[in-house]
C-alpha cells in the first residue's frame, strides 16, 4: 500500500485554513499532483502533493499535529 510521507518536519494541516474544508477526506480518490495538506515549518507553509495516484486515501496523521520528515501522512489504496 503506497504511503504519502511528509517531505519536511513541522505541523501538518489538512485544510488551507481553519474555516476551509479539508483538501481530501478519507476514501476520496487522489491524482498525481493533488494537494493533500500543508506542512508549516517555521511559520512558512508548504503544500504536500501526492506523488502517486490512488482510488482511496486514508489519513494517518492528525490535523494540526507535529510530524517529522518522512512521517507517513496518509496511505493510498
Amino acid at each position: 500500500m503506497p504511503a504519502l510521507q511528509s517531505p519536511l518536519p513541522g505541523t501538518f494541516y489538512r485544510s488551507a485554513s481553519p474555516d476551509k474544508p479539508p483538501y481530501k477526506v478519507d476514501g476520496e480518490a487522489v491524482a498525481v499532483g493533488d494537494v493533500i495538506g500543508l506542512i508549516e515549518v517555521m511559520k512558512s507553509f508548504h503544500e504536500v502533493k501526492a506523488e502517486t495516484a490512488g482510488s482511496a486515501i486514508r489519513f494517518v496523521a492528525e490535523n494540526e499535529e507535529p510530524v517529522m520528515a518522512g512521517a507517513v501522512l496518509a496511505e493510498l489504496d
Partner: protein
Amino acid sequence: MLKKLLIANRGEIAVRIIRAARDLGIETVAVYSDADATALHVQLADEAVNIGPPAAKKSYLNVDAILKAAHDTGCDSIHPGYGFLAENAGFSDAVSAAGLVFVGPSGDAIRLMGDKVAARSAAHAAGVPIVPGSLGRVDGIDAARHILIDTGFPVMIKAAAGGGGRGIRIAANLAEFEQAFPQAEAEALAAFGDGGLYMEKVITKARHIEVQVLADGADAIHCFERECSLQRRRQKVWEEAPSRALSPRLRDELCSSAVRLARAVNYSGAGTVEYLYDEDADRFYFIEMNTRIQVEHPVTEMITGIDLVAEMLRIAGGEPLRLLQSDITVKGHAIEVRLNAEDPARGFAPFPGTVAALCIPGGPGVRFDSMLYAGYAVPPFYDSLLAKLIVHAETREAAITRMARALSELQIDGLATTKPLFQALAADAAVQAGDFHTRWLEGWLETHAARLTPSLEP
C-alpha cells in the same frame, strides 16, 4: 523590586530576559512546550514548567497554562518577551487580574496602540506627524477630493473594514482616483458589508526609523533611534543605530515626538515608536507604536550603555525612571544582523536541523544573543531566528568592518543560515554608503542571488 519572574516566551529572547533578571537578583521560571524540553532557556532558568504540546496555541499562547505555572511556582511577575502574547491586551489584563505584575504596559495602552485608527488619532493629538491622509473614515467623494490636497499622488484607498492587505487600491493620478474611489466603496460594501474607506499618501521610497522609549506611567524618556530599512518581506534583517540619514535637528524632533506620544498615553515600560522617513522631503511620519521590547533592542543598548530589559524589570517593580534624558548619550555606532535558519541560496527556505560544530565570534565590540549550543536540535514549530550578532564600533564604517570580521569567525555547522546574506551586504557599496530604503533589499536580492552561496557544505 520583583522577586520571581516567569518568562512567557522561548528562544533567544527568553535567554536574554533570564540574564537581565539574574543580573538584578530576580529568580527566574522558564516555561516550555514538549518540543523545547532541551532548550537553553529551560537549562538557564532556576525552574522550568512544561506548559503543553509543540503547537504554540496549545503552549506559548495558552494563557491559563502560563498563569497556572506562575501560580504554582510562586512568581510575582510575568515578562512576555516579543511575539506570542506580548501585545495581547487581554493577556496583560489577565496577568494583572491574577494579582501578578505584567512587565509591560497596561491592557488599555496595548489596546489603544493596537488599533491603527486610534493610534493614529492619539499620535496626531500628541503633535506627532502622521502619514498625510484621512483621520478616520472619508465622508464621500467630495471630502476625498479635499484630502488629496494633503496626500498628493500616489494615494492609497483602503477599506476601513479590510485588513492584511485586503481591500487596498492605489491611484497614481486624479483620473485613476475618480475611477477607483467609487469602485473601492462598492467593493468594500460587497466584501465587508461596510463601504467605509480611509485614504493615505503612498511614500514610495522611505526609510524605517524607530525611537526607543522608556516610561514609568508618569514620565517618559527616549534612547534615540534605530534604522531598520533593510527588510525582506517586511521582516527586518539588519538594524543599526544611530541612523545616518537624520540631521541633528530632525533627530531631535523625531525623538521628542516619540516622548510626547508615550507621555500622552501614560505609557509604562519599554516601547518603540515607528516612523517612515521620506528622505527626499526630509520629513518623518508616525506608523505605529510597538508596546513591547523589540528584537533589535541590543543596538540601542550598545550605543547608550543602557540595559533596556533590566530597566523594564525595574519599572515593573515599581521604581520610577532612574535616568534623566540628559543622562542618555550616543557613543559610536552599532549594527545587528538576524541569523535565521533559512537558506538564502534557496529562496530563504526554512531549515530546521541539528547544530553540529558551533563557533561564536568574540573580541572587542561583539555581542551574540542566541539560544544555540552544539547538539541543539532547532524545532520546526516556531520562528526561524537563531541568533542576533551585534557589533559596536566608533564609527559606522568601523562597525561594518567589525561585522564582516565577526561573521568570518562565526561557524554554525549542520544548518543553513542567513550568514551569507550578511557577508554580501557588508561588502556591498550601497550598504557601506548607507544608501537604501525599505524596498531596496528585495530589488538587490533579485540581482545578487549568485552571491548568496550555500552556507551548508553537502
